[in-house]
């Protein structure tokens, strides 16, 4: 059996090359060679996502690379977790969606794959979600974090976006207990925008979102 590091390098290379079939073959080969399901996640998927995060400032991955990395992560998580010897301890839960008027779902889809690979439960509400629905879904599912992905300036800044979620959280006395995270194009071009829309944090890209959401789950659990 090759070392887990070798499989990781081969896998990450396939993701860099946006070669989905090759990446899946490497995971299959690792499994056939005896790599445990737990190690597929902890030794290959998660470190590959971390490499993207570590290179964010010097050599950021392209959207296509994140797309393939996340798509495979989703697929492998679904295959591996049922094979774990014991049920994995989940880090926490997030409800995620796009705000009212925003029909661009790719960002949240990519983020979801990375979060799931890092043992964060994702409740994907879909597109065009009202502030009330975000909050109710978070309460009902016991999520510590609400994540809102916006592609357009007016949906990021509108009253029915994060600002509206902040308002509903305040009205229900849930600020602090449920944290609000945002991401998407407008935030990359206005790095203070997350504060203006009442969010607790933002993620520069999908790989960075993992650390941000993990930190916010930790903050919520302190309350």
């Amino acid at each position: 059996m090759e070392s887990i590091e070798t499989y990781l390098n081969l896998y990450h290379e396939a993701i860099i090359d946006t070669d989905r079939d090759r990446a899946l073959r490497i995971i299959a080969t690792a499994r056939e060679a005896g790599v445990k399901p737990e190690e597929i996640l902890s030794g290959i998927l998660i470190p590959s996502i971390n490499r993207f995060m570590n290179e964010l400032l010097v050599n950021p991955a392209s959207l296509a690379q994140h797309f393939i990395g996340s798509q495979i992560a989703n697929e492998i998580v679904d295959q591996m977790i049922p094979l774990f010897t014991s049920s994995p301890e989940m880090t926490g839960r997030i409800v995620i969606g796009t705000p009212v008027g925003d029909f661009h779902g790719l960002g949240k889809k990519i983020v979801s794959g990375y979060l799931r690979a890092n043992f964060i439960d994702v409740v994907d509400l879909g597109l065009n979600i009202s502030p009330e629905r975000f909050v109710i879904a978070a309460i009902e599912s016991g999520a510590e974090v609400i994540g809102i992905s916006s592609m357009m300036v007016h949906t990021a800044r509108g009253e029915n976006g994060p600002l509206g979620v902040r308002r509903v959280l305040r009205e229900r006395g849930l600020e602090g207990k449920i944290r609000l995270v945002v991401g998407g194009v407008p935030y990359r071009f206005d790095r203070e925008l997350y504060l203006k829309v009442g969010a607790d944090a933002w993620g520069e890209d999908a790989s960075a979102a993992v650390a941000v959401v993990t930190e916010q789950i930790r903050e919520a659990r302190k309350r």
Partner: protein
Amino acid sequence: MNGMERLNAALNGTPADRIPIFCNLLDQGAQELGVSIREYYSNGELVATGQLLMREKYGYDNLWSLFYVGREAELFGSRSTIFADDGPPNVGELVIKTLHDIDRLEPPVPLMDHPLFAEERKCLSILRSEAGGRYPICAYITSTMTLPVLLMGMGSWFSLLLSGPDEPRQRLLEICHRFFVEEVKAYREGGADIILYSNPFGSTDFVPAHFFQEHSLPWIRKDIEAIGTSGVVYYCGSARMNDVIDTVIRETGIGAYYLSPLDDTGEGKRIIGDRALCCDVVNDIPMIDWTPEKVRQEVRSIIEAGKPGGRFLFGTLVMPFRIPAENIRALMEAAIRFGSWE
């Protein structure tokens, strides 16, 4: 001098009173006319009138014939567009829901006489009669490789583009190319001087460098060989392009490059050299909250980095609806002041 003379001077490296200034106040035209965004875009006469009024009001050098980007999806048969009160419309129905839909997809050609293009035709006709030859009329045309996003959504297109299957991917690209060529022809016949070739898939922010070389570049070459380089501006949305400019210049001869605010202006200018026009843009997304003084500082810094040596155009990115009018005025004052050659 008028806008067309300034643009030509910048393209040719000849003297002018100042650098050309391009601005895209699209949805703001509705506000200017006191109508909803939905009503505004339903009528080519309103769009033309709005654009002429905005140019007069602020004094920039170009005119837009663009309604909204999702219009191209409507031309392919999308029956739903979702309008907002304070921002651009969204595509509400994807015409390709499954790969089988690609088998039945037909581009709306010929476009010029197509009923769905009637309002664009009306808009172009008014712009041409009112300002043709004096102010460059800009058309926004989505490239072959990017157009499928509007037809099937970004995720589905990424999946088909990166992982196949080959046959529907190739067929879709061929259909989009046929439409692209027809659309450029229709806009040029209607009076457009500038073709903003919108191609985020021609940026390494979207696809890795190897993919750009192997897949994006051949389609860029094919697109440009079909339409020629006249008036064509290379544009990757808000994505960066400094990594690919040299290749695109050598492979296609496109004569103008509209950078991302995330690109380094000085580096872009150096790469382009005297081979083409460098267009740099202000990051206008935070401009909603800036003070007029902050707007002036940002504009000054971009122009000071790009203007030396000429062959430079100052532009804007998305100009969100909520930017206060005083900030737009500050932008224009600063661009005129710091962009002046006299």
